[in-house]
C-alpha cells in the first residue's frame, strides 16, 4: 500500500531495505524483549538492541534524510520507506526512540553547527541513548509551568529539580531538558538544554512502575547539576519554542511508544481483523458478528483516514492552516490506538482477562497490554485535552482556556 507512492529512486531503496533486512534479521534473543523501546530495562536487552540499531544505522536505514555532515544519508523521502520496511520486516525495534523521535529533530532545527556535528551521529547510531525531561510532578499537562531551575553561573548553568516520565533515562547519556531560568514570564522564562545524565554529578535516576506492572519510565532528580552553556539549545528564553518543535516531531516516538515497538497502525489493524476472524463469539467467528464488524470497519476507516491525512499534509494546495494537520497527529493517533485496543478486548471476550505469561492469552496478551499502555500516550507529552486546547487556540483562533 505504502509502495505505490514511491519514485523510481525510492522504489530501488525500498528493494535494498527489504533485501538487507532479510539477510540481516537478528537471531531472537534468549530473553524476553518488552513490547516497546521505552520499557527496556535490563542491560542484556539494552546491549542486544543497541547492537541492532548500530547495524541498521551502518546499513543506511536510519537518518536517511539527515545531512551527511551530521551522520545522515543526505537523501529525501527515504526514512518513511526505511521505517515502513523495518515495520513490515517484523525485526526488533530501535532502542534510541526518544533520541530519534524527539531529540534529533529539535537539535536539527535549533542546534548550533557544533551541536549538530557532535550529537547527531552517535544519536542516530544509537551509541548514545537519549531521554526527555519535560514533565514534572506538579506540571503534568501544563509543561510551561515547569519549575526545574537553571541558574546562570558564568559559562555554566546550575540545574535543580525533579522530572518524571523520563523513559530510557537509566541508559541515557543525554536528556533534552526544559528548565526555568526566570520566573518572570511563564513561557519566556524557559530555556532548553542538553543535559548529561549517565555519570553526571548530582543526577539521580529512579525507575517508576506503570499500571501495566512494567517498568520503563523513570523519575530523575537534579541536585546542583552543572551544565555548560555550550549545551544550551537555541537562545535563553526560547525553551518553549524548542519544546513545541520537539512535540511536533513526537509522532514517530508516540507511534512506536504507543503501539508495541515496530508495529505500524496498518499492522495493528490487520492484527485486529485477524483476531476477529479467529476468536469465537456465540459459537462462530467474532467477524461474523455484524455489530463487531461494523465497529472494526469504523476503525479501518479511521486508520486509512489518518494515513491519507498525513499524506495530504504534504500537499500545500489541499491544506489551509499549516499547523492544522501536524498539531492533530499525536491526538488522533493516540486515541485511535486506544479505541483499536479497546475493540480488540471486546472481540476477545473472556480471553481479554488473560495477561502476560498465560499460554491461552491471544497474541501473547498484546491487546490488554496495548490498551493499558495507550493511556500513557493519551496522557504523556500533552494530554488529549491539552492537544485539543492547542488546536482550538492555535488553529481555530479561539480564546485561551487559562
Amino acid at each position, binding site marked *: 500500500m505504502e*509502495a*505505490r*507512492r*514511491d519514485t523510481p529512486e525510492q522504489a530501488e531503496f525500498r528493494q535494498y531495505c527489504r533485501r538487507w533486512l532479510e539477510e540481516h534479521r537478528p537471531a531472537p534473543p534468549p530473553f524476553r524483549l518488552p513490547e516497546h523501546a521505552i520499557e527496556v530495562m535490563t542491560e542484556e536487552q539494552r546491549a542486544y538492541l543497541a547492537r541492532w540499531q548500530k547495524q541498521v544505522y551502518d546499513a543506511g536505514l536510519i537518518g536517511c534524510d539527515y545531512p551527511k555532515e551530521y551522520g545522515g544519508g543526505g537523501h529525501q523521502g527515504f526514512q518513511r520507506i526505511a521505517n515502513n520496511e523495518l515495520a513490515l520486516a517484523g525485526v526488533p525495534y530501535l532502542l534510541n526512540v526518544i533520541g530519534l523521535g524527539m531529540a534529533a529533530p529539535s537539535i536539527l532545527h535549533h542546534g548550533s553547527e557544533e551541536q549538530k556535528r557532535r550529537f547527531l551521529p552517535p544519536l542516530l547510531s544509537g551509541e548514545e541513548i537519549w531521554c526527555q525531561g519535560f514533565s514534572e510532578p506538579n506540571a503534568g499537562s501544563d509543561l510551561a509551568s515547569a519549575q526545574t531551575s537553571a541558574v546562570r553561573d558564568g559559562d555554566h548553568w546550575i540545574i535543580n529539580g525533579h522530572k518524571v516520565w523520563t523513559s530510557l533515562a537509566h541508559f541515557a547519556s543525554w536528556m533534552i531538558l526544559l528548565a526555568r531560568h526566570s520566573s518572570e514570564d511563564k513561557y519566556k522564562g524557559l530555556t532548553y538544554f542538553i543535559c548529561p545524565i549517565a555519570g553526571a554529578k548530582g543526577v539521580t535516576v529512579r525507575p517508576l512502575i506503570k499500571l501495566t506492572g512494567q517498568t520503563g519510565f523513570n523519575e530523575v532528580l537534579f541536585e546542583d547539576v552543572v551544565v555548560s552553556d555550550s549545551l544550551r539549545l537555541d537562545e535563553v528564553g526560547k525553551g518553549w519554542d524548542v519544546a513545541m518543535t520537539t512535540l511536533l516531531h513526537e509522532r514517530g516516538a508516540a507511534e512506536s511508544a504507543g503501539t508495541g515497538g515496530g508495529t505500524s497502525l496498518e499492522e495493528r489493524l490487520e492484527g485486529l*481483523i485477524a483476531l476477529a476472524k479467529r476468536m469465537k463469539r456465540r459459537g462462530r467467528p467474532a467477524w461474523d458478528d*455484524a455489530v463487531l*464488524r*461494523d465497529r*472494526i*470497519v*469504523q476503525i*479501518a*476507516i*479511521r486508520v*486509512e*483516514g*489518518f494515513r*491519507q*491525512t498525513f*499524506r*495530504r499534509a*504534504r*500537499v500545500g*494546495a*489541499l491544506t489551509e492552516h499549516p499547523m*492544522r*494537520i501536524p498539531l*492533530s497527529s499525536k*491526538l*488522533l493517533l493516540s486515541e485511535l490506538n486506544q479505541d483499536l485496543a479497546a475493540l480488540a478486548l471486546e472481540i476477545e471476550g473472556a480471553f481479554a482477562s488473560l495477561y502476560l505469561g498465560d499460554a491461552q492469552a491471544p497474541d501473547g496478551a498484546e491487546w490488554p497490554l496495548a490498551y493499558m499502555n495507550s493511556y500513557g500516550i493519551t496522557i504523556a507529552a500533552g494530554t488529549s*485535552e491539552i492537544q*485539543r*486546547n492547542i*488546536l*482550538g*487556540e492555535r*488553529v*481555530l*483562533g*479561539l*480564546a*485561551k*482556556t487559562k
Partner: protein
Amino acid sequence: MSQPKNFGFGEDETLLRDAARKLLSDRAGVEALRRLVARDHREAYERAVPPAPWDEALWRQMVELGWTALAVPEAHGGAGMRMVAVAALAEEAGRAALVSPLLTTLAATLVLRAADGPGAGAALERIAGGAAMALAVTDADGSWEPENTSVTARPGSGGTRLDGTAWFVQDARKVGAFVVLARAADGLGLYVVDADAPGVTIVPDHIVDLTRDQAHVELAGVTVAAERVAAAPGGGDAALRAALPALLTLVAADMCGAAEWQLHTTAAYAQIRKQFDRPLGFFQAVKHPLVNMMLAADQARSLVYNAACAIDTEPAEAERAARMAKASAADMAAFCSGRSVQLHGGIGFTWECDVHLWFKRQQHNQMLYGDAAYQRAKIAEVL
C-alpha cells in the same frame, strides 16, 4: 498503478478550485442564498407545490466557464478533467450550499461516461453544451442497488417504451433530461428522457433540504428512440457500478465543503459571542467540540481526495476508497451539523440564523447513495 503523492491535485485543479470559490462567494454567497430559498418560511415549506428556485443566470455562467463540461471526455467536447478536479468543484459547491443542478449533472455525466450505448456520447455532448441532467435510478424503497429499479423497458413503436416510476430524483425540476435506469427483458439499460417528453410526469417531493429539489418521475409509455439509449439492456448496471465510486466521492466532497463552512462559521461565532463575560471559545465545552468537528472534517476530506485519486489512477482501489470517504463524510456531517446548531445556542435554533441551511443540506447528503452504516457493511464484505 501507483497514486501520485499529491493526489494528482496540481496547477489546473488549484486554479479551478480557487476560481469556483471566488465565483460562488461573489454570486452565490449567504445573502444571495437566503434571498433565493429562505426569504420566507411559509414560502419554503407551506406551499401545496414546494418551490424549486435557482439562479439560471449563474448556471449559464458556470456553463461558459466549462464546469458542466468538466467531466465530459474531450472526445465529446468536454474538458475530460480528472476526478480530483470534479471533487474540488463539488467541495466548493458544498461550501456555498449551492442551489444548482451542477452536482446532479456531474453525477449524470459520470454515469454516461461509463456507458457504452449509442446515446451516451450524444448526451455527454448536450451536457457539455449546457444541458442539465439528473439520474433517475432509485426505486420506491429508496434503494441504491440498481437491480431494484421499478421502471420497465419494452420494445415499442419507434423505440423503447418506458413505464414505471423513478424515485428520489435530485433537482428534478432544474434539469432538461433524466438518465433513467430501466429493466428490459435482457437486463438493465440506461435511457435519456427529456423532462418534457410525452408521458413524463414530475411529482415534486416536499423535502427538508432548502438547497435542492427532489421528485419522483412517473413514466407512462414514454418512447425512447434508439439514439437516446445510453446503455443497451445488460449494460446499465455495469455503467452505474463503474460510476458508483465517483458518485459517492462527489457527494462526500460536497459534505466536506459544507462542513468547512459549518466549522468556520461556528468558530467565528465562538470568537465573538460572549457568555459569562468570556468569549464562547474560552470554554472547552465549545472549544473541544469545534476541534472534533475539524478533526472529523479533515479525515473525511483526506479520504475524499484519496478516493478521487484512486478513481483516476487506481480503479481497483476505487470502490473501497469511495465507500470509506462516503461513510466518513456522512458521520462527520451528522456530527458537524448538530454541533453547528448546538454551539450557536438560541440563535442557532432560529430561521434567521444561516446554519440551518447547511444543516439540512448535510442531512440530505448523508443518505444519498446510502448512509454510513450501509457503506461500512459494503466495505466489510471486501475486508
